[in-house]
Structures are given as structure tokens and as C-alpha cells.
């Protein structure tokens, strides 16, 4: 029995954050687990910050992860991972896509984007374990930049901490995409899985 396992996915509108949580939730239910979650989409439009929580277990009631109780944080974008630092605890794991999406306010000179080293310097104040990968490059290797989110799902499963079976999520991914693009997504998943497993070792 799983009591409580919390995954927070953070990113930018358009990166496929919501799809990731749908795939995770569906797979968890297939494996007989209870799931709760919730998402925030800014004003429901592209380009804003997006977070989505997926919570698995029999002792989960609310749709939101309480502060400091995130088990795994997936950062689809470095500054968005940092924005959610207070959900982390020392035992949390952060899986970070190192590719930045710079908002237009930076081009306008109205805000600044932190350096990656600044972000990587700050995250360990909350959590001891940060795994980094260039998910965009792996996605391109798989065949499409659009699979960046699936690469990150592969990375998530390589940690072997999830109560969901890897075969189940792959089955869900296969069912979710048209037959033509499903293999590209599975390849993306496998690449993320492999690269991240090396990093964990």
C-alpha cells in the first residue's frame, strides 16, 4: 500500500505539462492506485507558468501538494523549477531539464533571467538531490522536439521510486498517440530513461 507519493511538474505553457500528468494519472489508475491532482494554467493561455501536481496513495485527500512534501519535482524549465522551491524537502529529488525558456519580459528589459549556475546553486538549499539533463537534445535525438515532456517522463521512471510500473506508462503512451508518432514518443521515453539512469548511478 502506498500512503502518499507526490510529484510536482513545473514548466511553461506549451511544454506539455498537463499531458504528462494525464499520462501519469491514467497509468497509476491502471495499476490500481488512487490518484489526486490539480493544475494551474495561469490565465489558461500560452507562455505563462504552469504547474501540475500528481499525488498517489491511500492517505492523499487534497488536490495540492503541501509545502515541503514533494517527493519528486520535474522541472521542464530551470527557472520554473526554482519558482517552486518551497515544495521541496531535503529528501526530495529534482529532475531538471537544463534548457531555459526565456520570457518576453526579459527581451523587453523588464526582468532578468537567472544563470543556470545561479539556479543550480539555489536548489540544493532545499534538496540534496538534483539530476540534470538536456531533454530537448534527447527529444531531437528521438525525432521531435515535441517529445521533450516524454523524455522527462522516461527520466522520472528511471529513478525507480515510482509506484507505477514502467510498462504501464509505456502502454499509456502508446495508446495516447496515433500509431505514426507513438514510436517516436517511446524512443524519447527510453532515451530519457537511459540517460537519467546513468546519472543516478
Amino acid at each position, binding site marked *: 500500500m502506498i500512503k502518499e507519493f507526490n510529484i510536482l511538474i513545473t514548466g*511553461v*505553457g506549451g511544454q506539455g505539462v498537463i499531458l504528462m*500528468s*494525464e499520462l501519469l*494519472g*491514467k497509468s*497509476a*489508475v491502471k495499476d490500481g492506485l*488512487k*490518484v*489526486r*491532482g*490539480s*493544475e*494551474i*494554467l*495561469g*490565465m*489558461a*493561455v*500560452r*507562455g*505563462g*507558468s504552469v504547474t501540475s501536481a*500528481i499525488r498517489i496513495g491511500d*492517505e*492523499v*485527500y*487534497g*488536490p*495540492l501538494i*503541501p*509545502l*515541503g*512534501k514533494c517527493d519528486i519535482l520535474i522541472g521542464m524549465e530551470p*527557472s*520554473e523549477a*526554482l*519558482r517552486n*522551491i*518551497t515544495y521541496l*524537502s531535503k529528501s526530495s529529488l529534482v529532475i531538471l531539464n537544463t534548457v531555459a525558456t*526565456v*520570457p*518576453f*519580459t*526579459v*527581451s*523587453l528589459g*523588464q*526582468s*532578468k*533571467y*537567472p544563470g543556470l549556475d*545561479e*539556479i543550480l546553486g*539555489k536548489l540544493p*538549499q*532545499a534538496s540534496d538531490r538534483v539530476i540534470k539533463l538536456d531533454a530537448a537534445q534527447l527529444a531531437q535525438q528521438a525525432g521531435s*522536439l515535441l517529445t521533450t515532456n516524454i523524455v522527462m517522463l522516461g527520466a522520472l521512471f528511471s529513478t525507480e521510486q515510482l509506484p507505477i510500473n514502467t510498462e504501464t506508462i509505456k502502454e499509456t503512451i502508446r495508446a495516447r498517440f496515433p500509431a505514426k508518432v507513438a514510436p517516436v514518443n517511446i524512443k524519447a521515453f527510453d532515451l530519457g530513461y537511459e540517460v537519467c539512469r546513468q546519472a543516478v548511478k
Partner: protein
Amino acid sequence: MKELTISSDAPGERLFVLGNEAIARGAIEAGVQVAAAYPGTPSSEILETLAGVAKELDMYVEWSTNEKVAFEVALAASICGIRAMASMKHVGVNVAHDPLITAGYIGAKGGLVLVSADDPWAWSSQNEQDNRYIALQGYIPVLEPSSVQEAKDMMADAFKLSEEFRHLFMLRSVTRIGHARSDIVLGKISRERRKGQFTKDRTWLVYTPREARINKPLMLERFEKIKKRVNTLVYNQLKLADRARLGIIACGLSYSYTLEAVKWLGIEDKVSILKIGTPNPLPEELVIKLLKSVKEILVVEELEPFVELHVKAIAGEHNTPVKIHGKDLVPVVGELSTRRVTEAIAHLTKSKLPVDFAQLDKLEQETVPLLPWRPPALCPGCSHRASHYAIRVASRRVARDYGQEVEPIYPGDIGCYSLAYNPPQEAVDTIICMGGSFGIANGLAHVVDAPIVAHLGDSTFFHAGIPPLINAVYNKANITMVILDNSATAMTGFQPHPGTGYTAMGDEAIQLKPEDIAKACGVKFVEVVDPFDLKKATETIEKAIRFDGPAVVVSRRLCAMIEQREKRKRKEKVIPYYIDQDKCSPKCNACIELLGCPAIIKQDGKTIIDSSLCTGCGICAQICPYKAIIEERE
């Protein structure tokens, strides 16, 4: 095995759904036959889900022009003995308020349910009003779910309760129910389909003063019966702990936070908990039981102290010497969270906090200054960007004639174009309510001396823009009304409307044109422009502003997201633009500062176009003073 869907009649099976899908599923299980709504976050997916299965399940589903009409459509069906519902965001209920209050007098014949999707913290709204107060005013019983599963169950039951008491019910959802995800256990789907029958009954349905006076006491009688019944409804649950000092009354979703909080604090056995699923009317017997068993009470609820005030009234009536806390410890602004509830309970039970929240707050304060500001932006290729540019240039030209200090005024409205209040557009001076741009412009016209250019979208125009347009004609308000027609209700997810030519159920419909309506309403200056022809659009808007009397400009160009989608379907290539660095003056920045397109970025001091984002609209090329922006033709 066939994959489960929202319309599968598979009792006992589990399905992973969005909260709004669960609400729709509840209605499906109850055998709802008529559903109407106007889109609005966080409610839109309820009707979208129903529309998707309407033909399969033999239901009638419509996107109405506004919430008032949606509610009236549902009310009419109920009067004819059909199970019916209307769903809308919290502020949409304001639009439906007029028929809603009299509907309380009418009650219901076929089960009638109004779904009010409240939005604590106003994630995508202009306010965070608490519609339990509207329900209170109208004697409308409220079911408030604590989870997605309960939202489904309550919705299904609401129709039965409505028929049992011949009264309409409200389901109050909040953002974290409607936009939460969870597995739900499916129930059986009722396939009963009734034939609507209208029975003439003046005393019941014709509201002159006589009928109001006859029906109000009948309504009060029905409400009294419901008041008794809620004490035994499964949605209200009292769990008394042995010798507990503190009793927690948790309403709706707050119950989930409360369960997590007491577990986190490790005091599950030390507090009594009353779960409230019907804030209006409260289960008084359960409240009294709790009041008599504890020394102190904490009421936990989202937004206003609705339950709190009623509990205080009950306590006063029964002379119970219990100290009642609520909004003194639980915030009245914003959403609740496990943290906020934990802190309130810890304060009253003198428990140690499970996490050093102060430390986390400090970490947050240190982190915030490092973060870039990431507001949602108009999409690359959005026609509103071009329209706003044209409006600004045209209105400033005219404003100069009014005097040096005069600035044009831009009353704005609700939709994607609201985002133009952000820099660099900053072209929205008021946002108040649906259709408010034209209404406010009417008033401004009589008190200020400046060009007034109001704008709203096509769906908003059909929803609430026509009466203020007629008002401008009738009362001679010298204003310019720009209809930003992208042929979509884009903000909420591209739902069809009277201008799109098809209905919620996918049937063809007559396509209404805002310009035809404006002409028919007596507007003497009506022009249609393509905002991507910036020069022509600007000149036309300038003429409209200079026109003596109300003027209408329809700025028409399909929503970029839909156009990109259609292009992909047609396998048509998007031809992006690029910046010729030999011609570009890196210090100029006109494209960035005037348009703020997410596809135009600065990289190593150079201005470049991200070709993966560029849709090829070419607006930047039209305004570049150096003619440095060029289409990437091979």
C-alpha cells in the same frame, strides 16, 4: 478490452478524470436531457464533455449566448418535466441572477441543477465572489463537494433531490475541484428519456405580484423540508472524538485540507470533525451536537465566512458557551491549502508545526528576486496584437487634436485581449465584466473629453455587447467600438458561438456577423478591417474615432491557434520571418517594444526571430523602420 470513456456504462469501474468531467459524468448518470452553458473558466469543460456525448446519449446540449439564456433554457426544460442543468463560472451566475431568484419561487419539476464554478484567488476571473450568498438570497440549496468523486456523486444526486423536493439545487464547485484530477468510481447511467410536456399553470409560472405572494410561502415550505433532510444526507458527516476540546467544521474542499492537516499534525484522534456538504441549509442538528460536545470550534471554508456566521447564529440561539473561530484564523482572501489549515489548527491545539513554514517563507523571499516575470502573453501571430497596435496609433493621432495632455481611453473587456493590459501594449484601461467595455465607454462619453476606443471580442459581443451598443446609438455616445473578431471563444478553449456557424453539438448554424448587427442597430459608421493590413486598419480606426457619433470597426482575423492547427491539417507550411542582421539596428528594438511578440527575442545583443514560434503573420515586418524583417521564402 474497450477503453473506458466518460460515457461508458460500467458501474464500479475506475476512470481518471478532470473534476469538470466528473461533474458532467454525474449529470450523465442522472440521465440529464438538457444542458446549457456559456464558457468560462473554471466551468467550461463540463458542457464540453456533455456536448461530446450528446448525440450518443440522446441529450440536447447547447452553448447559449450568455448565462441568463443558458439558465432559462434549463429552467424551461425542468418546467416541462425534463432533467436539466446549466453550468457557468461564478460571475456568470450574476448574469443569470434575474431568472435565478424567481426560479426559487418556481422550484422544479424535472430535476434542475445550476453548477456554479467559483474561483478562489481569482485565477482566471475579475473577482472571487462566493456564490453561496446568491444561493442564500434565492433559497437555493447548495451541495459543495470535498473531492472530485463527491462532485460526481453530488451532481447525480442533485437531480434526484431536486425532484424529491420539487426545488432547484446548486452545485458549488471551486477551481480546485473543477480543475483537479482524480480517479472516480463510476455509477450506473440512467437511460430514461422523458418527453417534455408544457402544462399551462398561471399561478405557478406567470409572475405578477399575485403569484410572487402565493409562491414565496410555498418556496419557504420546500426549503424547510430540505433543511430537515440535510441532517441525514451522506454528504454531511459528524465524527466525534472522545473528550475533544476542538471541533472543526469543514465545508466542501476544505474538508480534504482538514483531513490532511490533522494527519500531518498527528492529532486525528484528538479533534471532532463535522464535514459539511450542504452549506445552505446547514445540517443544524449535527452542528448542535458538535457545539454541545466541544469547547472551541474552528470553521474552515473557502472565501467568505458563510458557514461561520450561520454556526454563530445557531450557537447564539442555543446559548452554547463555545468560542467559535473562522476567518480570524483562516484567510478570507484566496484559496485554502493544507498549510493554511494546518497553521490554524496548530494555533488552537498548540501543536508543533510539522514543517518550519517560516524557514520556507524565508527561502521563498530569497528566491523571488531571482525569478523572471512570466505573465501569459498574446500568442505569436495573434490578431489582437495587430488590432491593439492599430488602435493605439490611430487614437493617439486623434488625441493630439484634443490637446497636448489628452490621452485616449481604452475600456477593455474579458477575453484573450485582456492580456493586452500587460506591456508593451498597455492598451486596456478598464476590465470589469462581460460587455463592460462598451457600457463604461457609454458613460465616459458624457463626462470626459478624449477619444474613447472600447474593444471586446466576438463571443463577448454576442454575450453582452449588443445592449450597450444600442444604448450608444440611442443616447448619442460618441465612442468607437472595436470588435476583435477572431471567430472563436479563444480564452476558454475555442467553443463555438453565434458567429462561428456551428453549434455545441456540431450542427451547422446561421453565422451571425457583428457588422450586420451594428448596422441593424442604427450605427452609421460600420467598417470591417483585416488587422494584418496594419496601414488600412489604422486609417479606418482613425476615421471611426473622428466620426461624429458611435462608430463600429470589426477587426477580423482567425485566431492564430486555430489557423496554425488548420494549416497543419492541410499540410500547409508556415513560412516564418527572419531578421537581416545587416539592416537591423540592434539598439532600435521597435519590434520588441511595440509588439512584445514571444517569437522576437534578444540573443547576444542581437534581435532575432525564433523560427519555431513565428507564425509568419508579418506584423513586425510592417512596423520595422529599417525594413530588416524579411519573409523566409526559398
